[in-house]
């Protein structure tokens, strides 16, 4: 029986590498009737902020070729509600619940984590330093120094596992990854959404409200996310969680080949709530088919010399 367990560090062991991505699974309750939360490895909650947020005005979502834009604006009930009302209920599911935390300043993150640290039921934190849909949401994530400062500040107040979620909207994602690793991150998730814009052709302005931009997710961004994961993998030694455009087992395998230790399913859950559970089963089958016992054996090692598939299959080249 192949082994799907994954160790994210600080004692956080996931039963399998498949998680539901932040913002696509609420706080669990929203889709517990549709997704078997006992079968997945982790649930990353909707971004949680110090104070409650009503979110952005509509329209908040728009579809594009193979993707969707969202500008939810971090609608959430605020960290106190999450810590006192939601967290006590998290343990009803067997999946690890990792609370995604967002803020505009280092201090807001620290306050959120302090408050959440007082609650049981929380397996770890995912620091969203990359939300494109709120003012200043990207500032902390674009500069390696700022990202490290944030990570170190949160590290100082919690012993729980810290996952830092990176923005792809940067010149050098590897540099940010290396900076947060040195500052004490236990794992990295990559990537958040890409800044996109869709126009309303009759109205001659953006479809989405506000500045009009939103975050692009879905299959359209998969090759970009896989590239980001490979770049992060090359820059750090800690676990990497791949996210962006996964809709089936093959997609998840691609991220693992690129260097991910775990994955998150985001947008794909919307049209098909069973996606994550299907991928858990699919990964087990894939390991059996390929004949290996752990997913990490799938990983591509760029340094190793390339052997052609045919050659590997024992077909000799002509003399």
């Amino acid at each position: 029986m192949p082994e799907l367990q994954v160790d994210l560090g600080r004692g956080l062991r996931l039963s399998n590498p498949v998680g539901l991505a932040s913002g696509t699974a609420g706080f669990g309750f929203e889709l517990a009737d549709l997704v078997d939360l006992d079968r997945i490895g982790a649930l990353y909650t909707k971004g949680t902020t110090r104070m409650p947020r009503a979110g952005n005005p509509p329209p908040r979502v728009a579809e594009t070729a193979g993707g969707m834009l969202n500008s939810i604006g971090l609608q959430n009930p605020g960290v106190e509600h999450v810590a006192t009302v939601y967290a006590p209920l998290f343990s009803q599911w067997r999946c690890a619940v990792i609370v995604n935390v967002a803020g505009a300043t280092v201090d807001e993150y620290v306050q959120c984590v302090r408050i959440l640290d007082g609650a049981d039921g929380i397996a770890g934190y995912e620091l969203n330093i990359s939300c494109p849909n709120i003012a200043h949401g990207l500032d902390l994530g674009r500069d390696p120094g700022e990202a490290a400062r944030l990570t170190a500040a949160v590290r100082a107040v919690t012993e729980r596992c810290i996952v830092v979620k990176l923005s792809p909207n940067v010149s050098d994602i590897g540099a940010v990854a290396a900076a947060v690793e040195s500052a004490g991150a236990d794992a990295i998730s990559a990537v958040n959404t890409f800044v996109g814009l869709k126009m309303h052709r009759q109205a001659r302005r953006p479809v989405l409200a506000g500045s009009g931009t939103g975050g692009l997710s879905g299959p359209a961004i998969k090759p970009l996310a896989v590239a980001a994961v490979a770049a992060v993998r090359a820059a750090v030694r800690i676990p990497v969680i791949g996210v962006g455009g996964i809709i089936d087992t093959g997609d998840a395998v691609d991220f693992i080949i690129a260097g991910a230790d775990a994955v998150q399913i985001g947008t794909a859950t919307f049209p098909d709530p069973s996606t994550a559970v299907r991928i858990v089963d699919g990964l087990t089958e894939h390991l059996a088919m390929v004949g290996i016992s752990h997913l990490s054996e799938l990983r591509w090692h760029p340094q190793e010399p390339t052997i052609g598939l045919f050659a590997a299959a024992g077909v000799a080249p002509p003399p």
Partner: protein
Amino acid sequence: MSTSLRDVRDQRGEVVAVAQLGGGMVEVSARLPHLAGVAKPGQFAQLRCGGSTTPLLRRPFSVAWTEDDVASFVLAPVGVGTRRLAALRPGEPLDALGPLGQGFTVSGATRALCVSGGLGCAPFPLLIRALRRAGTQTVTVVSGAASAARLYPAARFARGDPGVHVEQVTEDGSRGRRGLVTDAVPAHLDGASTAVYACGPTPMMVALARILQGSPAPPIAQVSLEAPMGCGYGTCLGCALPVRGADGQAWTLCCREGPVMDVETVDWDELMTLPPAHVA
């Protein structure tokens, strides 16, 4: 912490009939026993051609009719998703996630007025059947469209029920009264005995809301609204609609608290500033 999805299933149905209703409107019927069994008038389902991931997201459609284990939807090809759904053929698979959302309040008001604009006809056949079963004596439908070709066939509202009266209105006068569907509304209002239900384009609903504000309050005044949806089941927070909150303006989720809402709950001024969902 919604727990209202216990009735929701993702079922793969088989298309059993596709009827062209004129004006590009199509009625797609599929064997979907679960949905057909539990859907209430005004609820919707998230549809896609069986197993298809292009387009990425499903599309929301009101359940228009149910009969035994078959559920029917009325739609017209306006964009990529509806084009593919409208091209389905009998025997092909259709995925339906539902029933979703809050339906209409069906109580025993003596009379009911259904205001239908264009494709807003979709939820009415099911609602009308339920109203009549719940004891409503007369159901009047005022059904409007740009032209005769785009009118939902009157007989499909009534489905043979003599207690249902349909009045047609077209903008170009090609059938029935010439004008906007809301022009025909005031004559049918009579305060406390007539429940009012509406579904149609935003400007129509706004005009209706204005008419109702100047009239004696009906026992029920509900509209079915639309918003672009990511999930359809309350998780993505994408389908916000402006409502009049306790402390001023607020948002609610069309897919979970709607799509049917009480007229006075909606913040119509704010809704008017939004572009139509369909981007052509």
